């Protein structure tokens, strides 16, 4: 009977005049109201601007400037929902339209000087600013970030790092102004992570002083080349170089693939990679070269050259080292991906946490108000550890950016290993967090306009490009092993990569852990170091035992991947903890430092709770593991009052978040159904 009554009421309301809210309110007293978390939550007890400063450092002003540029242009599709304006690409448009919009947004930003000096200014500040630009626009649309990344970091970076003065003079300025649009033709259908196996072949013709690039078979077609399908005029082509019958290995060449009018050049064939699960605003393409001739000067010759008469010249005799030098530009790609993944993770969390602070479900007792999602311990457990981890990993990504832009010859190895570790760890965390945010927002998480669900497919590719995450993890372990083996051989203490703790005695873990012990930096450091040390030892033992049995190193590394990946994670987690402690040390005692302490404890505790290696290898006894598990819940309830302030400190303007982060009832009200997507709130709010 109640149901019938309810239906009648609903129908009556449909039939009745809608402009009579007063009478509606009298009869249906239980309407759900939206209350902004800003009013219902306690005021932040720490300075959210100061916390944002720790996350974004020097880049805050530049980030905010780019937000300003994006928010003020119709090209970024401003839409009003619930009295607020949001910007977001129109994903409902066709792939071709999305690609065109990406290019138009780039033109808009370029015309306003947003890219000035990206390649022509030198020094750490200029490089940092490049990261900031690509990452910030990526928060609006991953395609826009990637399109810029390919052009500036990959194409531009290849010219900078693999080229010499003659290339810099000729190409950098026109690249910055987009007279030249670059792409990066490395991956082939048959070869991705294994760059050294690519099959594109280049010969030299001394009579005309030209190189001739050939795609010898279908598996050698260039694949996934961002920018190639529609817009790029030039490509850096990776190819084997055969001189006088000798294959000198992989080299990079500049080839023009389109003329200024966008026509594909003779002896080049280009096809589209087609529609993808995300990133459709980037025109990934495939390229075949049919004996394409390019001038001799187009070899990027920083490590090797070919003389006019066809002699191969290289300062680096060892092809392995030559190859390593070639791959330097990929590191900047990894840095962008790692930092960019934290950026969107923060967007997802800000939306999901804000929603959980305004959305209610179920009453605990009859006639009581329903409970806020975030006040359920289970919901806290879903989101708050991810917030803490995101803070930890964001500090690590800042650290990575900094060591990258300040790199020197002696630190390049560290940059390489750290960028591999963090690229994998951060992007995995990003995808996992977005999935959790999607679920935590329930059905609303499925709507594209609310971002959290959609971001998953847009960012999924991060786990693959610039090095498959699993492959990267194994590479880290190999690098670590090399370090300790070398130190032992020289009979010297281990130095670098944060491995110095190996020179000290093995840390001792208390047999009965307490809550307070779990929260000390000493214990946290000890157990993370113990895990890394032990796994490194186990890995080393297994490798040397197998070597003793006569197995080849290549074979050994393919079969020891389990422990190698455990070790990769242990290295990465210990590194992240260290950077967190370094950040904390810069903050004076007070409420901000206290919150950082809570976040760090949550970070370390959740790692111990979730990574099976702590139990598998016995760093935690089952009793201690139970203490850890309990501590997670305690930390959740202690972080709960800070939830709003913690996502506020991420520093995103409202326009970058989704409607469910704010008044989702107004955003979905009947009155909003008829309104067209009016643009500026100031014009419409008041009317």
């Amino acid at each position, binding site marked *: 009977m109640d149901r019938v009554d309810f239906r009648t009421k609903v129908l009556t309301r449909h039939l009745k005049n809608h*402009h009579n809210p007063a009478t509606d309110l009298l009869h249906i007293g239980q309407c759900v109201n939206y209350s*902004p978390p*800003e*009013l219902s939550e306690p005021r932040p007890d720490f300075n959210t601007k100061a916390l944002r400063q720790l996350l974004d450092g020097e880049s805050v002003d530049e980030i*905010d*400037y780019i*937000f*300003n*540029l994006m*928010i*003020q*242009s119709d090209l970024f599709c401003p839409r009003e929902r*619930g*009295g*607020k304006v949001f910007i977001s690409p129109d994903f409902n448009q066709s792939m071709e339209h999305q690609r065109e919009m990406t290019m138009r947004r780039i033109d808009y930003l370029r*015309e*306003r*000087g947003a890219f000035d000096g990206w390649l022509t200014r030198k020094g750490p500040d200029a490089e940092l600013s490049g990261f900031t630009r690509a990452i910030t626009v990526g928060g609006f649309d991953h395609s826009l970030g990637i399109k810029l990344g390919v052009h500036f970091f990959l194409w531009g970076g290849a010219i900078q790092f693999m080229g010499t003065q003659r290339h810099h003079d000729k190409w950098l300025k026109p690249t910055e102004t987009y007279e030249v649009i670059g792409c990066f033709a490395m991956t082939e259908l048959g070869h991705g992570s294994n760059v050294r196996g690519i099959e594109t072949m280049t010969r030299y013709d001394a009579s005309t002083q030209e190189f001739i690039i050939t795609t010898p078979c279908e598996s050698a077609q260039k694949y996934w080349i961002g920018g190639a399908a529609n817009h790029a005029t030039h490509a850096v082509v990776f190819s084997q170089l055969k001189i006088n019958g000798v294959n000198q290995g992989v080299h990079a060449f500049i080839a023009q693939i389109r003329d200024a009018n966008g026509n594909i050049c003779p002896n080049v064939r280009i096809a589209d990679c087609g529609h993808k699960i995300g990133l459709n605003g980037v025109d990934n393409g495939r390229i075949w070269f049919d004996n394409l001739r390019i001038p001799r000067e187009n070899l990027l010759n920083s490590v090797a050259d070919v003389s006019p008469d066809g002699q191969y010249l290289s300062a680096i005799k060892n092809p392995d080292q030559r190859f390593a030098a070639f791959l330097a530009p990929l590191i900047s790609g990894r840095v962008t991906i790692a930092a960019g993944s934290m950026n969107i993770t923060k967007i997802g969390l800000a939306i999901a946490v804000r929603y959980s602070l305004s959305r209610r479900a179920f009453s605990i007792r009859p006639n009581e108000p329903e409970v806020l999602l975030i006040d359920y311990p289970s919901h806290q457990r879903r989101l708050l550890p991810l917030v803490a981890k995101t803070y930890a990993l964001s500090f690590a990504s800042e650290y990575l950016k900094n060591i990258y832009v300040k790199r020197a010859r002696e630190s390049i190895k560290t940059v390489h290993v750290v960028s591999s570790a963090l690229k994998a760890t951060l992007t995995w965390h990003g995808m996992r967090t977005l999935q959790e945010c999607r679920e935590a927002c329930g059905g609303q998480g499925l709507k594209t306009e609310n971002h959290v669900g959609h971001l998953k497919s847009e960012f999924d590719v991060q786990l693959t490009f610039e090095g498959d995450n699993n492959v990267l993890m194994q590479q880290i372990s190999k690098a670590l092993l090399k370090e300790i083996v070398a130190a032992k051989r020289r009979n010297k203490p281990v130095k670098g990569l944060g491995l110095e703790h190996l020179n000290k005695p093995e840390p001792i873990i208390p047999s009965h852990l307490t809550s307070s012990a779990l929260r000390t930096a000493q214990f946290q450091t000890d157990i993370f170091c113990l895990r890394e040390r032990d796994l490194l030892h186990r890995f080393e033992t297994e490798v040397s035992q197998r070597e003793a049995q006569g197995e080849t190193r290549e074979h050994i590394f393919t079969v020891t991947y389990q422990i190698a990946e455990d070790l990769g994670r242990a290295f990465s987690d210990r590194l992240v903890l260290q950077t967190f402690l370094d950040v904390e040390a810069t903050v004076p005692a007070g409420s901000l430092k206290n919150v950082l302490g809570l976040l760090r404890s949550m970070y370390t505790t959740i790692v111990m709770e979730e990574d099976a290696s702590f139990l598998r290898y016995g760093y935690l006894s089952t009793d201690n593991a139970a203490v850890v598990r309990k501590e997670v819940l305690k930390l959740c309830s202690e972080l709960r009052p800070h939830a709003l302030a913690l*996502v*506020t400190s991420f*520093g*995103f*303007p*409202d*326009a970058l978040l989704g409607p469910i982060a*704010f*008044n989702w009832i*107004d955003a979905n009200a009947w009155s909003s159904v008829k309104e067209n997507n009016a*643009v*500026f*709130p*100031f*014009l419409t*709010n*008041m*009317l």
Partner: protein
Amino acid sequence: MAPTNQVLIKESSNVRTIILNRPKQLNALSLEMISRLSEVFHLYEEDPNVKLIIMKGEGRAFCAGGDVSAVVNDINKGSWKLGANFFSKEFALNYFLATYTKPQVSLLRGIVMGGGAGVSIHGRFRVVTDNTVFAMPETALGLFPDVGASYYLSRLHGFFGEYVGLTGARLDGAEMLACGLATHFVPLEKLSLLEDALCKANSGDPKIISNIINKFSNKNPKLKEKSQYFRLKTIDRCFSRRTVEEIISALEKEADKNMDDWISWTIQSLKKASPTSLKISLRSIREGRLQGVGQCLTREYRMVCTVMRGEFSRDFFEGCRALLLDKDKNPKWKPSKLELVSNDMVDRYFAALDDKDWEDLKLPARSNLPSYAISKL
């Protein structure tokens, strides 16, 4: 506080008409007026008998701004804190109006500048007419666009807000309607009829009010032939630049291509304005774009207190001397050039004041903020 004749009130059943009544000073807002306005607006919000508030000015202006010369006098006689007190009251009123729950119709006849914009633009309906003149002229005075201007200017289309805020450009009624500062344009001869009609309708329903105003309005008032609104593209290209220096150099590049009166006026007005004012104004508008109105006013209060204290620059006092007191129109700014105003100097205007008696602006508590009033940054 005893009622003042500087603010008059007309009652007509459920409608209250507030009249700014200091015509000799073009209704410039005195502390007394601000206090009285706060008082009546608070009163009317609680009073179920009040449904609609109409606001207008006596004489030929709506309101020419805050009474700055009085503020300067106070400061010269006593302490900068007297100035701070004035602005804390004014900004709290601006916030109250921006988050007001009942509709306010402002009839903007004649001049609407600075503080006058602050008591009208935040309201729901802004009705302009044939002789309306709007401007935020503060940068010429050594101040910056305050009263929540960093909120409403930053929300105009593209970078028009930067243009209006930095140059002090004057907009007429048609331009205000076109850019969104006004919601309606009603020809001068129909304004009093509109007022009567609103009183007669005696309604607080925004839709009904809007329909009534619509009946009297000209939906498409013609922009004058040389309207700056036709220059939106150029404004957008130049005023979107990151720094004031880059904005000026972009304008100069445009001038090289196509020099005309408007562009040379624009460049001149930037060169005449206080360099410090220009830099803090630009940053204020850019930050305001990412903030809610409460945060905008809180930040502006920090800025205005820093200006009043005059520790880093005394341009405000110099501007008032040159434009309001001595009227030689030749202010000597210090620092005198944009390049002498460093980022560090700008930063100081945005930080909390280092003074033990000073506090951040206290916004009046609101029980139910509209979502556009809140921003998280």
